[in-house]
């Protein structure tokens, strides 16, 4: 007997869970399919959870969500081969009742989110891969899975299957993602006792620290690294554009190894036990790479729509917001007795354009191109900055004025004055 639902959600990441939760909570009969053994097993993320997007759906999520630490300190480090220069911002204000940013481990977090979907009546089936969308003409009417059995039908299918959505490409919704629009990130989780994490980062209770890292570790490629403190582990990762890896001479894994060996990082990981290594793609094409978001009987949400703000390392919040907006569109249409046709689903696009998601992506629309065409951001500058700091800090009888002059000279030597000014202008334009 063929099953039929109001909506099918493919994928149980943040986007799919947000969509499924919102739909089921509104009383719709929904099915969510996830290929992983449990929600979260296939997911890879640093990971920072931005509370706002989740809070809009589950206001009291702090009561039982598996949160690791709330972030009270942000560090930005620029590394050269042997040193780093950086900034810190730490504030007790982040120790508020309702902190805004948390570190999470995706596996338990996604599982928790999924339990919420079930609690409001969503039907969730894992270990099942959607292999094909069933179409009637150009209208999506259901899905086919890798399991023996009948096709499954629905009024609308929401694709939340993550970056590199095979289903979307296979169904012709968008072309295969291009190498210059996607980053490859590798990350490891190093476990160590809670006390060690806390003393190493000078934190207590549930406080946490984030370090954003850029510099020569990426061998001149466009990319950044990150380090997050979890309750009893540390997440360390690094990512660069796939197109760069293709031309480059270093593998992502080797890069991560170099990062781990860096004198600024190694002491933070010492004694830890590496338990999880994972590699994952991040769609970083930004605004210009966002595909068509909807069609006859289908919508794209989250990574499968390329919704990542690479500059601020935001993804899961865009994913959740898009998932929620897609679901709300379906709920409105259902309530009005309207079909999920392309014409009606434009409301989803309109809601997205109104939200921070598309606004933020638009703001940074030029950045990916600029970074890509100006590799010195990731090679020359880190070295110069570090050397400058070094020069200023060494007390060797030379006067400070001469030192400053030398530093200025070193900058101009490596990068012409016009170049420096151009860089500054382009960065300002791109992030304005």
């Amino acid at each position, binding site marked *: 007997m063929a099953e039929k639902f109001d909506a099918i959600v493919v994928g149980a990441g943040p986007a799919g869970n947000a969509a499924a939760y919102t739909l089921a909570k509104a009383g719709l009969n929904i099915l969510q399919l996830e290929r992983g053994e449990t929600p979260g097993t296939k997911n890879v993320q640093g990971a920072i959870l931005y509370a706002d997007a989740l809070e809009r759906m589950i206001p009291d999520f702090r009561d039982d969500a598996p949160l690791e630490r709330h972030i009270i300190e942000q560090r930005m480090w620029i590394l050269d081969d042997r040193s780093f220069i950086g900034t810190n911002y730490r504030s007790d204000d982040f120790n508020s009742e309702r902190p805004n940013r948390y570190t999470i481990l995706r596996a338990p977090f996604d599982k928790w989110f999924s339990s919420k979907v079930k609690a409001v009546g969503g039907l969730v*089936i894992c270990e*099942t891969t959607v292999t094909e969308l069933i179409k009637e003409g150009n209208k999506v009417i259901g899905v086919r899975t890798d*399991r023996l*059995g*009948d096709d499954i039908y629905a009024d609308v299918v929401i694709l939340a299957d993550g970056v590199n959505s095979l289903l979307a490409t296979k169904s012709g919704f968008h072309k295969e993602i291009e190498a210059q629009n996607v980053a490859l990130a590798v990350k490891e989780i190093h476990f160590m006792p809670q006390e060690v994490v806390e003393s190493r980062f000078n934190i207590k209770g549930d406080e946490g620290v984030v370090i954003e890292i850029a510099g020569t570790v990426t061998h001149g490629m466009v990319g950044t690294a990150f380090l997050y403190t979890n309750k009893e582990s540390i997440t360390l990762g690094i990512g660069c554009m796939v197109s760069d890896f293709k031309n480059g001479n270093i593998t992502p894994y080797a890069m991560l190894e170099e990062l781990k060996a860096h004198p600024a990082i190694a002491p933070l990981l010492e004694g830890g036990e590496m338990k999880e290594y994972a590699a994952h793609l991040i769609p970083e094409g930004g605004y210009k790479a966002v595909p068509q978001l909807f069609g006859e009987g289908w919508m794209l949400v989250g990574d499968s729509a390329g919704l990542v703000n690479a500059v601020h390392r935001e993804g899961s919040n865009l994913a959740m917001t898009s998932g929620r907006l897609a679901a709300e569109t379906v709920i409105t249409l259902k309530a009005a007795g309207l079909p999920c046709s392309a014409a009606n689903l434009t409301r989803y696009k309109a809601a997205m354009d109104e939200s921070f998601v598309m606004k933020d992506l638009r703001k940074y629309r030029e950045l990916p191109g600029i970074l890509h065409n100006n590799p010195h951001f990731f090679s020359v500058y880190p070295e110069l900055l570090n050397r400058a700091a070094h020069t200023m800090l060494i007390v060797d009888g030379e006067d400070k004025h001469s030192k400053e002059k030398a530093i200025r000279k070193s900058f101009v030597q490596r990068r012409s004055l016009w170049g420096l000014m151009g860089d500054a202008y382009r960065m300002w334009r791109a992030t304005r």
Partner: protein
Amino acid sequence: MHIVVCIKQVPDSAQIRVHPVTNTIMRQGVPAIINPFDLFAIEEALRLKDRMGGKVTVITMGPPQAEDALRKAIAFGVDDVVLLTDRAFAGADTLATSFALAQAIRTIGAENPVDLVFTGKQTIDGDTAQVGPGIAKRMGLQLLTYVAAIDEVDLEQRSITVQRRSEGGVQVIRTQLPALITMLEGTNQIRFATMENMFRSARYVVPQWNKDRAGIEDASKIGLKGSPTVVSKVFAPKPKAIKAQMIDVSQGPKATAAALIDTLTSKSARLANELGLVAY
């Protein structure tokens, strides 16, 4: 035919970490799985059902989360499940576990008599291989451990013929039903659930039995109270102090091999002697 299969939910021990200072298990994020050995028992029971008809009931004793393991069993195609869960079961060793399970299986059998009970060969956390024999003795079932294949089940004659692994060979044994089989690993491969069973599993409401529902009157036989053994100490294995002596590999494989043999003849003379290695 009514078959009961006992399964246990266990932490995936491949992913367990030990706190380097306190030597306690760090369970955070360690997924719980069906004891891998029990999958062979489930599959064999399903195959028997495919062959001869009847019903398969899966039972587990554990915390409420063990429901996930049972739901999975439903997805594989078993007919019914029972979750035996009660604070009174906590701290059970194998004797107390087999008492509780035996009693619950009796209760299941009161409604629909049980012909065969299956367990896995052993668990990967307790690792004792005792719960199966324990249940059999408690229930007075014929015990067939380490079964590699079931040759024949004759419901008229109430007989069963199996091949069981014993030291140095395989025994072909015939005995009477009801019997308990502990299934050897590698004997079959768990099936890939159908979509229909996935739906059934997702919608299934797992029945929870406390000790009274399971028909257990004597609380002194279950849980910590009913357990003769107590764990008196848990500790980490002592790491070996001496690391390997590294053989020089800079001159290529051939030189490395020669260097190794030289080292053996000088440093492990007794072994070299026994091997009959010539020293140069």
